[in-house]
């Protein structure tokens, strides 16, 4: 019974990791770039929401919308300043370091907005569920559903619309897409906005489930997103979702069996093993073998 309970908790947390992983996979899969400032954008959005909350007075839904808008704005800013100028093939490391500089900047702005170490973060109130002996937190169940719905919406966007077609064409080959008339730089901007919206959703869900924000949230969410992406297989969107769920399951089980202290280390150990034994992750094997991705410089 404990196993079942832990697994359900893991899946609930894993669904938010899946969103973090998806944001990374969108940016890396399509633009071959790593946005180190991703977590800082999330922190910025959450800080802005808490800062504006007493002024606007919209309660939990206000936090929800301001967080998403704040993260999307920060993400767009990062794209303009750090990624748009370095769109050439060899600009990857430079873009990553520029995003690191902006990470520092956003961190500082967030700590100006929220001067204390921890701030309460209100969630949406939902009654909890008991299902025999299995307990499910109402808000986490709601988050799980929101995560599934947003993954579905992303899927429809990418596979059923013209914009999605353009994005997928760019992912396959930016040069060809450009020759066929796609506005590749503009698509990059759209992708960062999309990643920001997904990240904002994940940030709201994680923080309201925890009930508080600390300045460490930024680094933490960057790690989780990167790891979920790697476990699933770099560049694969399906992989990122599965990777996020696996990460949630592994973390909760490791935490239950070995204690909270070992939880993160089990994750890092797992990722290291995945990388050295099966570098393409779960889904990305084909990508790793056939694509030039594996040879590409970061």
């Amino acid at each position, binding site marked *: 019974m404990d196993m079942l309970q832990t697994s359900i908790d893991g899946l609930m947390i894993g669904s938010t990791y899946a969103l973090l992983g998806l944001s990374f996979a969108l940016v*890396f899969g399509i633009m071959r770039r*790593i946005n*180190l400032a991703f977590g800082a954008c999330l922190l910025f959005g959450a800080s802005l929401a808490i800062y504006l909350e007493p002024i606007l007075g919209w309660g939990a839904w206000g936090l929800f919308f301001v967080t998403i808008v704040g993260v999307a704005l920060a993400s767009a800013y990062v794209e303009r*300043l*750090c990624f748009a*100028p*370095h769109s050439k093939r060899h*600009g990857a*490391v*430079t873009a*990553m*370091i*520029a995003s*690191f*500089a*902006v*990470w*520092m*900047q*956003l*961190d*500082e*702005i967030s700590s*100006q907005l929220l001067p204390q170490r921890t701030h309460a973060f209100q969630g949406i109130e939902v009654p909890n569920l008991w299902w025999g002996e299995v307990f499910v937190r109402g808000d986490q169940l709601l988050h799980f559903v929101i995560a599934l719905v947003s993954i579905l919406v992303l899927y429809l966007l990418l596979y059923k619309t013209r914009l999605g077609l353009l994005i997928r064409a760019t992912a396959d080959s930016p040069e060809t897409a450009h020759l066929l008339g796609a506005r590749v730089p503009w698509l990059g901007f759209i992708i960062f906005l999309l990643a920001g919206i997904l990240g904002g959703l994940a940030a709201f869900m994680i923080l309201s489930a925890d009930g508080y924000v600390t300045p460490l949230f930024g*680094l933490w969410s960057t790690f989780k997103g*990167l790891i979920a992406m*790697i476990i699933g297989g*770099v560049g694969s969107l399906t992989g990122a979702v599965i990777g996020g769920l696996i990460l949630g399951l592994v973390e909760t089980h490791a935490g239950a069996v070995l204690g909270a202290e070992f939880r*993160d*280390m089990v994750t*890092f*150990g797992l*990722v*290291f093993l995945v*990388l*050295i034994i099966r*570098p393409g992750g779960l889904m990305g094997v084909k990508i790793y073998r056939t694509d030039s*991705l*594996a*040879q*590409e*410089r*970061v």
Partner: protein
Amino acid sequence: MDMYLASVLTNMTLIAFLALSAYLVLVVGEVSFGQQAFFGIGAYITASATALAGAHVFWGLLAGAIGGASCALVLGLLTIRLSGIYFAISTLCFAELLRFFLLHLRFTQSVDGRIIGPDGPEGFSNIRWIFENNYQVTDFLLLAVTCLIILLIVLFSLERSPIMLGARMVGNDPILAQSQGLNPTRYRLSFITLSGAVAGFGGGLFALFNTHIEPAMFGVMLGIHGLAYAVIGGLGSAIGPLLGVFLDIGLLESIRSLAAYRMIIFGGLVALLLVFRPEGIISPRLVSHLKSRWRNRHV
């Protein structure tokens, strides 16, 4: 010299070792998020050697460098198939695992009535070498700068040798390098090992200077800073990373009056700088341009 200035300069010198080690990995075309672990291992080994075993500081620092190099070699061998983002993330994981090991390392001893040695998350306190030998901050600065200059001389003589030329070639295009008869794997392994040695040595000096070290100091933020210094300064020459360190710590210390907002200003400035000089300040292109001008003048 002013105590404060001297300690800022010493910190800059110590971080320069980390930046140079990140530079050595970047030269062979890889990005490492894990140099801070070798820095930390070096710090722990040097601290143990001098404070616990009572070894001479020279042997302590040498042991730190060798420790850093061997950890780096292990990482290099494990990740021999990986490159790009795969390599970068695996260095991050490796570094966090090493830090976890340090977090659980407990080996305390009582020396002269003081409890010293690594003590889990509390870290390693009472590294008293600097007091026992009556080193002032300025004396230590002199020691650290001397070590850095020796390292720079070694790197500059490397720069003129075929080794560095080969490494840069491997970094630019491994397949092309292979077709020219170079062995990319061997270059990668030896430069990663060398970078571990440099980081470990710097870590040893860091332990001696700080007199207290703890695993939390060697988190991933430290490593990314080192990496950023190398990229901002430029990969054209070993002076690049030093310039990066100088810009960051030097400028940050000089605008201390704006303490609360300095990262906001500075982060934006660095991002803007990279827009105008994407290959860093001293880029490989700038170096080769200067070299050719220098040659033309002396023909």
